């Protein structure tokens, strides 16, 4: 078996790693753009593996709930954490049902039920530049998507925020 450009970093695929254009020094606690909005970040997998944890960063102030999950490129939800209460300035590394995936394009997804703070990146510049950059990273969104839907109708971004998320992988 050959593995071309396994983008996993120590068997963890993160949005900052996958997009490779997000300077981690820009990660900050940021208000979720709007209640029930879901944001999808593309990640690619080069060989079969099993997803066994998902991670997000909670920003300041413990309030609200989130849902983090993984979708295939057709918008089908493969696994998610379900509704989870948000802590304050803490990472949430969540066990999920072990889910086997093959090589391909996937989307890490996150939605929140309010505008509480989560860790993420807003590309630099003055409007509309950050939004354009978020689109050039390949991110998508969906309104009215909390908790994460079984099937996602992903559309072009209207807000630039990109949450930091990660999927923990182990060999298939």
């Amino acid at each position, binding site marked *: 078996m050959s593995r071309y450009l396994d983008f996993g970093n120590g068997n963890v695929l993160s949005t900052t790693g996958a997009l*490779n254009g997000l300077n981690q020094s820009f990660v900050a606690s940021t208000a979720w753009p709007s209640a029930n909005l879901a944001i999808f970040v593309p990640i690619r997998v080069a*060989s079969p593996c099993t997803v066994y944890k998902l991670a997000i960063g909670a920003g300041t102030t413990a309030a609200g709930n989130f849902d983090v999950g993984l979708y295939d490129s057709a918008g089908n939800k493969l696994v998610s954490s379900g509704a989870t209460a948000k802590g304050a300035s803490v990472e949430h590394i969540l066990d999920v049902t072990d889910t086997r995936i093959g090589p391909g394009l996937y989307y890490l997804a996150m939605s929140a039920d309010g505008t509480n703070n989560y860790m993420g990146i807003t590309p630099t510049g003055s409007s509309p530049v950050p939004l354009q950059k978020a689109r050039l990273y390949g991110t*998508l969104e969906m309104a009215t998507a909390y908790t994460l839907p079984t099937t996602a109708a*992903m559309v072009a971004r209207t807000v630039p925020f990109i949450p930091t998320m990660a999927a923990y992988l182990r060999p298939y």
Partner: protein
Amino acid sequence: MQYRMPPPPVLTPFNLDSLGLSAGGLVVYLGASVSVAWPVNNLALFYPFRLFDFATAYQLLLMIGGTSGGNIDVGIYDSQKNLIVSSGSTAMSATVNTAQELNITDTPLPPGDYLLGVACSSTSGTVFTNSQADESHLSSYPIYEQASAFPLPNPCVPVVSTQGTVPFVVCGIQFRPTF
């Protein structure tokens, strides 16, 4: 069994499939790009990228800067430097600070090495770039150019960029129907 990395939904020179690994190591990020005037009238710039799996190109993209001017052309070349598809000469969008979406015939591409070419007819036009000093960056990754190359030529005859400040232009290929 051999597996292949699928293409990104939007490929830019900042992707790992292109120059992103070396560029990121030198703190060159798409997110930190800014508006800069096109360096030379009719100059074409070329960024190598690799596809590990089949992909269909739906649109070509160029992030327009704060001032619009001149015409642009964005295209894809094969490893033999033949032009596969391009937007052709197109007026730079008057809507500034926005990614200009250039529709092309949906073009399937097999795995292989390619060049993403971008050219502008006038230095009055601006694009988003992350420009860096040539000695520090051309020693780490190649960016190619060709003078008097607007619209994009077929074939191209690129040389390593001679610009003192190397433009890392925010341009790209959309490999899914939705941008």
